[in-house]
């Protein structure tokens, strides 16, 4: 057995994997929605990734590779299986275009006032397939190609699923935005009196 090769691998793995630790944990917590499960998921991901590192080709996209391991580990966990069983079969079907903004100017103003907690709750309420793609795109700032590699779906599916995720999020935010608008009007009315 070539021990120097094994150690070289371990060094490379550590250099590639440790810098992603915080991001992987954040993503795992969003998926599992609790700290203990997130820690288990990240730990299992690192164990699997280290074990399978010999199959990873240096120079290719390590981030997409390890995120894919994390996601697959989640999907095959008890919680992940439960979540995927509730996903409607047609959730990736071609969508009918719907304007994102019905009342553009007020929504633009209100989005600027939207607080973190309301947005985090709305993201939490998204189905897991929408939540994960939105986080990979907006938080991890992955390209469509990286998302495609991570989720093992074609780029066309990445685009349509992202679009649906954003629209669903906006719909979920609407009550918060309307509530914010109501409060704002009330404040302005009181101020005027």
């Amino acid at each position: 057995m070539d021990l120097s090769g094994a150690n070289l691998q371990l060094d490379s793995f550590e250099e590639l994997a440790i810098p992603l630790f915080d991001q992987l944990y954040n993503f795992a917590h969003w998926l599992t929605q609790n700290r203990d499960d997130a820690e288990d998921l990240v730990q299992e991901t690192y164990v699997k990734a280290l074990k399978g590192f010999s199959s990873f080709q240096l120079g290719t996209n390590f981030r997409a590779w390890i995120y894919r391991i994390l996601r697959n580990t989640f999907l095959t966990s008890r919680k992940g299986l439960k979540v995927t069983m509730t996903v409607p079969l047609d959730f990736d079907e071609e969508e009918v275009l719907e304007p994102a903004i019905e009342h553009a100017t007020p929504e633009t103003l209100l989005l600027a006032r939207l607080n973190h907690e309301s947005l985090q709750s709305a993201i939490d309420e998204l189905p897991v397939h929408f939540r994960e793609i939105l986080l990979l795109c907006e938080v991890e700032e992955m390209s469509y190609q990286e998302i495609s590699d991570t989720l093992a779906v074609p780029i066309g599916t990445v685009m349509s699923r992202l679009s649906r995720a954003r629209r669903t999020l906006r719909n979920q935010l609407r009550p918060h935005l309307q509530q914010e608008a109501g409060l704002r009007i009330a404040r302005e009315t009181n101020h005027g009196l």
Partner: protein
Amino acid sequence: MVCESWKERLDTYLDGELPQEEMGALDAHVRTCPSCSVDVLSRVQLKRAIHLAGKRFTPSAEFRNRIQRGIASKPRRTVLHGWMLAAAAAVVLVVGTLTSNYLGNRSGRDQVFSEIADLHVATLASSSPVDVISTDRHTVKPWFQGRIPFAFNLPELQNSEFSLLGGRMTYLEQTPGAHLIYNVGKHHISVFVFQERSLPARLSDNSDKQEKLSFNMETWSQGGLRYFVIGDASVADIDKLAKLFKGTS
């Protein structure tokens, strides 16, 4: 409506995934179309908000430590930095010492010293040796508040040859403690602080100096805390840093 075909591509445009020529055309359209420009503004706001709100969860220091040690604690041969090479050489010595200790009658005290050496080496071999990166003791000290069940003082280093690199949480047989890393010349020195009563092995009450494992170590108890100073720096440097710590209370 003319804008419909543009609106369809706004998200792809804002994700930077449109082909170059379409990007230019859409840029030009957005500048002249009030409806699309408001739409773009709203989508950008939402993207920014998700980006910020999405960075919500941070791992605990204990979990980070566990993962890092799980990956970094193994011996290695190929490293990038000179000081890592020194650390790797020390691993071999530590392993050698551990083996001989197992063969002989290994005392609890030696066990603690070996673990301290192990922690020092494993940390320096890690790609991110410290969790709080700062040369300012007034930044590093408060970082430990709430993370470890005690407080301690860091020495003033002005006019000394030492510089603080940062700190991290550490565990010695399930006992939480502080791990600080200092620089002197090209050497790295670790300072570990634990609550004396929480440590499993009874250590010497007085100051104790060890000169084995190819690096030097000094330990003492002060104010209910157990300090360890360890590194491959000279005995004099280890002693100087120990004295600075002893002078803090």
